[in-house]
């Protein structure tokens, strides 16, 4: 079930908009596909990125998944808890498992993302394959 008031990318990232900042994590679908998360490679605070740049990666025992910047901007904060407790991504993907925060440089990019309902349909499309 997708969360209310969040936006979603095709790469299964969720965004929570807070003014001109966004909090980013990965969805329940993503964490389920990954399996038990063992390590998160977090970006450096202050790193500048364009939409679509690989920002972080999440490792499970058998796979690595890139997390991409859903919008352009600068990293203002990363979730240090993930260093000691990477399993937060599995346990609370939409809450304690948030990964990083970006201060946006082009808020218009938000329009290219999906809302909760569209993401649910997108998920249905994927599992239908």
């Amino acid at each position, binding site marked *: 079930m997708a969360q209310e008031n969040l936006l979603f990318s095709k790469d299964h990232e969720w965004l929570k908009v807070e003014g001109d900042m966004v909090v980013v994590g990965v969805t329940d679908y993503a964490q389920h596909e990954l*399996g*038990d998360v*063992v*390590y998160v490679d977090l970006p450096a605070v202050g790193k500048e990125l364009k939409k679509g740049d690989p920002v972080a990666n999440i*490792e*499970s*025992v*058998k796979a690595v998944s890139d997390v991409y910047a859903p919008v352009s901007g600068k990293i203002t904060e990363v979730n240090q808890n993930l260093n000691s407790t*990477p*399993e937060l991504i599995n346990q609370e993907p939409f809450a304690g498992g948030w990964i990083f925060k970006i201060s946006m440089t082009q808020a218009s990019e938000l329009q290219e993302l999906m809302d909760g309902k569209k993401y649910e349909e997108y998920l249905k499309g994927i599992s239908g394959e």
Partner: protein
Amino acid sequence: MTALPKLIFELSRDGKVGCGLHEADVPAEAVIAAADRRVDIADFPQVSEVEIVRHYMALARLNYSVDAGFYPLGSCTMKYNPKINEKLAAADELQAHPYTPHDLVQGNLEIMAQLEEWLVSLTGLAGFTLNPAAGAHGEFTGMLIIRKYLQEKGDARKVVLIPDSAHGTNPASAHFAGYEIREIPSNVQGIIGIEELRAHLKPDVAALMMTNPNTLGIFESNINAIADALHANGSLLYMDGANLNALLGIVRPGDLGVDVMHLNLHKTFATPHGGGGPGSGPVGVAAHLLPFLPLPRVKKNKDRYEVVYDDPRSIGRVKNFYGQFLVMVRALAYLLALGRENIRRVAEDAVLNANYIRKKLEGVLDLPYPAPSLHEVVFSDKDLPVKTLDIAKRLLDYGLHPFTIYFPLIVHGAMMIEPTETESKETLDEFINVMNTIIREARENPELLRQAPVQTPVRRLDETLAARKPVLKWRRGENI
């Protein structure tokens, strides 16, 4: 169930001694100052010889092996390792220091020259380097050869094409050789389609890396057209020879347009896997690439063997000394024991065995690609109430080693089965019976599989914990 063995450090006690070495008998003082010498090696084991033997025998009892039973890992070619080869490789007369003057090791140099000759004749290529230590090392060497060849022609290119069914070492090796990878999807038949290749064949393509037969066990039947298209484009064809066991004596890659290939002595040529190595990955090349082979190379000069160390066109040195010499000894012994009478039999029996298994199991397991299988067959876990992992773990309860699981990636829940030619029909029938039993269990009582294995010394180890909290060595005072 017996208790698991302690670590050697847990057996250690002050004052116990494991070896029988005498003290120095020279009247000499150390030249290195005391401050630059270590005091001792803290916590290093002190265990008696008796206890050491029992320790490793206990560890041995925990290991499955080819010597113990069927080991059908796909693309690994877990064939029987002849014991006479161990004795030959241990002979004192062969154990020269690698810097021994060449006139004193003519026998060893001849062994390497003979092996090269065999490999040339088996593959139809012009020459081989025996330097690389393993398949991936051979792939890396081959990519460097291709790159240097093209650079010399003034036609340096940046891209290597690799099919989506390729083993992970292929893109990794190409990457370390400085190449960018462009992936080609396999077609519905499971092979590289000629039109698909042409669509990807831009002027920036240096080579295509092809495994043949591929990791589905299917022959890349478009290879002739692919080779022609590549060559017309100024590109080269690299062949990953891991699956050569299907082709030995049947067809020669050099005759199919292959420019560079590596072999795995620890697969096709029966040298033991040793729990992960040592292997040996000789690389063969077509005539136009000979000058680029790494160094050193053994050369025959009338009735003497010499070693070439310098060649400005060579890619350079990839390995210390000559390569995995004692592995080469085993491979040559294996070939000499097979002889011309049996070389072809290897591939024929390997392919017969794989097809027998395929025929017997294709009624109960999903076969994603109907094309003919050569030496290995790949099933998927489609329509099964359990996962491939569960089937594999349940096989352990029946005393058999599982097949390769979850590779190639293009098949869901892949089960890659390669029996090899050194398995008897009885063993194959036993495997087939067990598989049928397990699949029946899967439908009637899937929990049996999900709880498996129950007969092994340990069960479903926590790999997540191992990755989250890595413990990569023993430390005094830390116990689980």
